[in-house]
């Protein structure tokens, strides 16, 4: 069977095009499982998967939980309030405790960039980064790629806009790495404070452009990923008001009209309707926001299986 030749999935920066394709192909196979009356395969039977979430999360935590359960793993969900990390234990000690209980995969979400990498370097278990601060959120990007590929049959040659708080967004970083690796062109758009030109330094020579005008950014694109605006950004003076933000950057039907008629609208959630996206667009015919969520389970099944799956039990 095919496996990822890596212990962990920490980012998309270090993942190859071939590995991404392997994950997306495997996700295609698992997508069918969701359509069965009994949505289970034995691929992770007897393995322990722990979901360790230090930030509130509805969709990502649920998605990983379902993915692991559908692979027949023993799944434990830990929210930060329940864990001893709050009692002063270090993250590495917490993980050592899990490891002593024969952990196979640890899925981690924290607000600290690099925490998944730190844990990965200190444990034999596979680590899946479910978001580390502003750094990366690789499975979100994989499900975005999967969604695009299902609609267009390819990623290569697509032009994709990512709009909003690019600076603080782990989704944006992972999306750009993944899109570039599969041959897409990327347009980043947001105010200068949230989408600084310096960010292009991450991808020297790559087909990435920065826009501060939403209309220009959307002209002729195949897809647009709208990022969530976090209210705490206001306290850091990154923009003057939500009213002004939405006047300049909210994705409305009128603005979407300059994109290709087939343009897909994506959002990693949770949405602030009326702030970064209008309800008309979010619920409109071009929106694939719901599909992103369903695809997320299949993609995460693929990741867990390819990292830790039992031999020949994928069916």
């Amino acid at each position: 069977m095919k496996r990822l030749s890596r212990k962990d999935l920490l980012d998309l920066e270090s993942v190859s095009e071939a590995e991404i394709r392997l994950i997306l192909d495997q996700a295609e196979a698992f997508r069918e499982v969701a359509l069965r009356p009994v949505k289970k395969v034995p691929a992770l039977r007897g393995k322990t998967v722990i979901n360790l979430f230090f930030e509130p999360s509805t969709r990502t935590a649920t998605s990983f939980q379902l993915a692991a359960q559908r692979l027949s793993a023993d799944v434990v969900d830990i929210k930060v309030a329940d864990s001893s990390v709050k009692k002063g234990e270090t993250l590495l000690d917490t993980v050592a405790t899990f490891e002593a209980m024969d952990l196979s995969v640890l899925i981690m979400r924290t607000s600290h960039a690099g925490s998944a990498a730190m844990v990965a370097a200190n444990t034999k278990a596979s680590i899946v980064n479910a978001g580390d601060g502003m750094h990366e959120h690789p499975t979100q990007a994989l499900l975005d790629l999967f969604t695009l590929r299902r609609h267009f049959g390819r990623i290569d040659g697509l032009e994709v806009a990512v709009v909003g708080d690019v600076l603080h967004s782990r989704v944006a970083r992972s999306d750009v790495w993944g899109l570039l690796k599969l041959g897409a062109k990327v347009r980043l758009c947001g105010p200068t404070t949230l989408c600084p030109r310096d960010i292009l330094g991450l991808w020297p020579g790559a087909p990435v452009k920065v826009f501060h005008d939403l209309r220009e950014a959307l002209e002729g694109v195949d897809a647009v990923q709208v990022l969530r605006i976090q209210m705490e950004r206001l306290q850091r003076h990154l923009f003057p008001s939500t009213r002004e933000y939405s006047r300049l950057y909210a994705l409305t039907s009128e603005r979407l009209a300059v994109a290709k008629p087939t343009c897909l609208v994506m959002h990693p959630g949770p949405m602030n309707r009326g702030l970064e996206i209008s309800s008309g667009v979010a619920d409109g015919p071009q929106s694939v926001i719901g599909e992103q969520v369903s695809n997320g389970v299949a993609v995460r099944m693929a990741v867990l299986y390819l990292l830790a799956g039992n031999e020949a039990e994928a069916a």
Partner: protein
Amino acid sequence: MNEPVERQLITGARLVDPAQGIDGECAVLVEEGRIAAVGAEALKQASGAAVVDAQGLWLLPGLVDLHVHLREPGQEGKETIASGTRAAAAGGVTTVVAMPNTVPAMDSVAIVELVRAKARAEGVVHVLPSAAITKGRQGAELTEIGELARAGVKVFTDDGDGVMNAELMRRALEYGAMFGALFMQHCEDKNLAHDGVMNEGPASLRLGLRGWPKAAEASMAARDAVLAEATGGRVHFAHLSGAQSLEIVRTAKAKGLNVTAETAPHFFALNDGWLLEHPYDTHGKMNPPLGSEADRLAVIRAIQDGTLDCIATDHAPHSSLDKNVEFDKAAFGILGLETSLALALEVLVHGGHVDAAKIVSLMSARPAELLGLKGRKGTLAKGADADLCLVDPDEAWVVDPEKFQSKSRNTPFTGMRLRGRVKRTMVSGRWVYEDGRGILA
């Protein structure tokens, strides 16, 4: 060897002593903790003295480090006065200025005296306590600067934090001028640095770590240059790391203002690309953070042109408990005492940027002068304290923190090959350290 020998003649070494204008083979006679004679005079008076043959080595005035965190009282798990001064001796450093961010802070004569007493009893090198500018280093009320100065404190600093309140800083400079106080500013505008953990730039964007713009350092440096001009007070800029702030100091000096400045070895040895090579390695986390390559080159230029007066280590011991955690949560700071001279020799001298005399000026003569110790320290002229070190400038060694005298191990230089090795260190006429034997005192 460590028994005080009445009279010792050190011969055969190249004496590098810019304060005397000497750079060449020159004997030095040590007697009763002082330099009794230099050169031909030393040889003439040497009868009966024990002879130390230092052929092939450099003889330097003991290094004077303006910026050392000894952590005692309060954080003895990281370092103590005993262990920190042992580390100093191993690095050729014979005088350290102890930073006041202890627990409690060194903000009163009582705590300063406590540190002095401890240092006399347990220290291996000279310890000069600094004192805080504000009570508890809280940035709100002035310490009793006059009392502290009368008790012999030369350096005032809230190091670890900058003094954010411009009015308070103005009054400190104005008032402290009466006592000749030197105000060492940790330049960090808290609003600009905010919750940053590394230099803001391509590397921070890539790693997703919160950026800390160099403007946080430069804006406070600019403000204090203005205040130095307005008050005539003495401002010393600590651990400068960015091209912008160095340009501000250069301009201030050109105007003749009473300002001086130091950098730390990591700012000429490393840049923030180190964190891309060692992602999230908390040994690359310090305050201020490592700058860009342009910043690093600006530091070297500022060393060459005299904008920077001193190299000080900002020796900041932390235990693995403080460092073996998420990057955001890790303590700022790295060890410095046991690698500073070797880094200066490797990067600056072997790298062809400056000569040996410049290193002695940066690490001994000039800091001694800023402390008001000119003639006594920072030189091996007749009558000076017999604080010195013998150095093999070419001996290569590989940094291994397990061999450090410090209690802590937090260095980014592990595994780095450096040329320049401290062979022996003498404090007040007594040999306190010898390479291979360790601490002798």
